[in-house]
């Protein structure tokens, strides 16, 4: 069967398949690349000696820091309930945003919306 014949008989099927592939491409691509290409886990700069422990354990913070931040945010902004923890108090130990927040977020290409409005200076540049 010639190409023209295939096109004529399976036109709709081809269109649907191709468009589905195009739509799903980003998902398939990222899934495949995460399996096939071993990207090294980004090295996050750990806080210095004065650090004793974080407000929650490491595993929790690794996966759920955003939930914690969001909860603090809701408590403070909406109920005026300023707790002991805030984005500012992270700064006490994690001094560098570039070497802590940004490194991981860049490697998973998640853009951060916090620092357009909240100040988080770099230790070198802060005066």
């Amino acid at each position, binding site marked *: 069967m010639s190409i023209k014949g295939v096109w004529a008989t399976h036109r709709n099927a081809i269109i649907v398949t191709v468009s589905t592939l195009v739509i799903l491409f980003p998902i398939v691509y990222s899934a495949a690349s995460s399996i096939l290409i071993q990207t090294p886990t980004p090295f996050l700069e750990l806080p210095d000696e004065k650090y004793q422990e974080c*407000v*929650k*354990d490491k*595993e*929790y913070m*690794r*996966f*759920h820091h955003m*939930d*914690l931040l969001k*909860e*603090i*945010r809701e*408590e403070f*902004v*909406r*109920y*005026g*309930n*300023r*707790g*002991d*923890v805030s984005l*500012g108090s992270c700064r006490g130990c994690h001094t560098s945003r570039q070497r802590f927040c940004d490194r991981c977020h860049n490697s998973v290409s998640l853009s951060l*919306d916090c620092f*357009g*409005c*909240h*100040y988080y*200076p770099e230790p070198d540049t802060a005066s």
Partner: protein
Amino acid sequence: MDRRKFLKASGILLSGTACAPGLPLLTGCSSTRADRERTLSKYKWGMVINLEKCRPDCDACMVACRKENNVAFHGDKRWDVHWIRKVNVREKDSPDTAGKPVPLLCNHCEDPPCAQVCPVQATYKRDDGIVIVDHHRCIGCRYCVIACPYNARYFNYKENPDWPNKEYPKRSHGVAESCNFCAHLLDQGKKPACVEACDKINAKALCHGDLNDPDSEVSKLISSNPVKRLREDLGTEPKVYYIGL
């Protein structure tokens, strides 16, 4: 199971730690929300502005506000944001009279139209009566700017280039904002920046305090002077009172 509980539970499950269900409140807050709400609702913040003491060519309050709250100033009337602004008001058809200066700010209405129309509940009234914006939620529809009958709400059309007060966040472009009586200062037991500035130059035209407390300065001023509020006919019950309007 509500969302909060769900998050908490999934957090515990996913992190795979043996953290007991007896985790304290995630934030580690010293006081619970209920306590705090009670403390907030004790107050009813309000302001009294004495126009006789307000100086005509003074912009101390505006400057102080910009500095404290990182309010965007581009030098263009179309996009400048003013949490507090001063206008000059005079009798109609009398161009020779000088008129008097009137500071205008968010009136922190008891029944705020801006909070009523906000589709995401970003603008809301706190328990102490302050109308405040949660900029993390605002989608920038500008409906609140339309609904405010006092022109007291502003939209960030442009990114703010300055950041004078690093302790306080600024706002990105695309969100609405208005005066919040410097809620962060009130929480620390201080006075709003504009009031502080006005006291500093010894004009003392602005007075801020608790309307619930009959012995506070504002309550005394209100009971001992003829006061007016803006557009009382609308029934929004503003909490900014003017003497000598």
